């Protein structure tokens, strides 16, 4: 470690060896299993969708920095991460303009006008997904069943979007087995299908200390508790956590540094709130999935949580009883 440099950076000081680039690289590595699972279950078209989304995000950021005559920020990889997460949030059957519009929206509306990385008010991928849901609801709502791997050329299934077997997601049918949900052998968005792959990625991030366990675990826990409460059925909780984008959102989107609270109690409230709203939307609205709306709302209350909840400074005593005693 002789070449270790003294790093000067503004708070929050995560660790000295982390840089934005290394964190983003870790996130990309952690997303790889989910992407691989998506390609395995839905064919190569999913890869094309994700790549288009990445390209759109990166080009949009490049365009913005070039127009504003700012230094190019592509090398911190944050645009690529947003692109991958956004791509994983789309159905493998979406028309190709959907990831392109999504990337443009994420970068040119949500992220860059507010000052770029670290200053965005909401997670760009979550906001872009909500935008796409509201804009292209039909295209966003078409899902396919996992590819049948017995035939030759199965890997190209869905390339045209016509030959794939479209089907309802387990969120709609509600009858998938836990094993299939866990492995990912169900219909859904590219990245949300396999809970196993997402957990692997999340574990990697935890070990690399890129994310803290508090937010993802509490989002999942609160989702489980509230869904059991709403349905008055304990088995509903596991189904909620394993199905849809719950795990993808909890591990990769709710943990965004810029849009989640800085304090312990702030992030507890934030995480429980996200789980609660997501289950609320799933249970009582006509939308099958609510996690992206929940994360967006959580992002929006984050400034409030940061403003009203702050840690007690070291050595600080509350005025009142203790102060009176000392006096």
């Amino acid at each position, binding site marked *: 470690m002789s070449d270790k440099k003294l790093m000067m950076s503004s708070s929050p000081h995560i660790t000295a060896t982390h840089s934005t680039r290394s964190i983003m690289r870790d996130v990309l590595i952690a997303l790889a299993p989910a992407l691989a699972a998506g390609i395995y279950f839905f064919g190569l078209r999913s890869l094309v969708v994700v790549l288009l989304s990445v390209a759109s995000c990166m080009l949009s950021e490049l365009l913005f920095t070039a127009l504003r005559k700012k230094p190019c920020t592509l090398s911190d990889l944050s645009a690529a991460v947003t692109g991958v997460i956004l791509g994983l949030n789309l159905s493998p059957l979406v*028309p190709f*303009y959907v990831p392109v*519009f999504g990337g443009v929206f994420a970068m040119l*509306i949500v992220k860059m*006008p507010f000052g770029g990385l670290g200053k965005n008010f909401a997670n760009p991928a979550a906001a872009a997904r909500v*935008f796409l849901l*509201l*804009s*292209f*609801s039909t*295209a966003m709502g078409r899902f396919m069943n996992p590819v049948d791997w017995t035939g030759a050329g199965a890997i190209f299934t869905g390339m045209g979007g016509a030959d794939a077997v479209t089907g309802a997601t387990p969120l709609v049918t509600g009858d998938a087995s836990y094993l299939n949900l866990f492995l990912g052998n169900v219909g859904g968005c590219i990245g949300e299908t396999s809970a196993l792959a997402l957990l692997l990625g999340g574990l990697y991030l935890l070990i690399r200390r890129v994310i803290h366990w508090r937010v993802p675990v509490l989002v999942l826990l609160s989702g489980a508790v509230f869904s059991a409460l709403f349905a008055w059925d304990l088995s509903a909780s596991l189904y909620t956590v394993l199905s849809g984008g719950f795990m993808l959102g909890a591990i990769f989107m709710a943990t965004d540094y810029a849009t989640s609270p800085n304090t312990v109690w702030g992030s507890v409230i934030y995480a429980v709130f996200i789980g609660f709203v997501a289950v609320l939307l799933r249970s009582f609205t006509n939308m099958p999935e609510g996690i992206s709306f929940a994360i967006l709302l959580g992002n929006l209350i984050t400034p409030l949580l940061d403003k009203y909840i702050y840690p007690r400074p070291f050595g600080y005593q509350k005025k009142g009883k203790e102060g009176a005693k000392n006096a």
Partner: protein
Amino acid sequence: MQHKKLSQIAVNGLLNENPTFRLVLGMCPTLAVTTSLINGVGMGLATTFVLFCSNLLISLLKNIIPDKVRIPAFILVIATFVTIVEMVMNKYMEGLYQALGLYIPLIVVNCIIFARAESFASVNPVLPSMVDGLSMGLGFTAALAVLGSIRELLAYGKLGGIVLLGEWFPGIAMLGTAPGGFLTLGLCMALFNYVYGRVTEARAHKKQAKAKEENV
């Protein structure tokens, strides 16, 4: 001197104090009816008519209206003209009347009209008040037309009801809804103020340079 002032007032409503982009007044109709170019222009012109007439009448009556009851008096004047607009539209422009719906009677509580009555027409002579009403109204109309055309084009691929972008264009449905209205408004406002700031800055520089030259 009088002439120059009138032209200043005219420019004021369109640019310096554009009700939508600079004063941020009348947001309710701005967000609600700009789903298409025709709706935007229709709402803008209806408001312009009311604004012009109410400014004229309030300016004429400003010495008669007691200070304490001026707000109810303004509302009465404004509501009269709004009723006229509503009836005329109902008779001659049925389609637009249906499209704008509730937002026509709501012109009564449009803050642009109120603001101009309170801050301009009630303290200025008749002619400047008329010019002010007209230019504020046209500034509002122009803003609504811009917002309406952007939203109509991107959400439905049409402009003024004519299909411009063909079948291949998917249509960004969100821009037709209220959140899309907020987005478009914010972006247009940012662009307007960016350009406006650059222009006024350049003008100030020129003036300074000229003054320096004259001093030398």
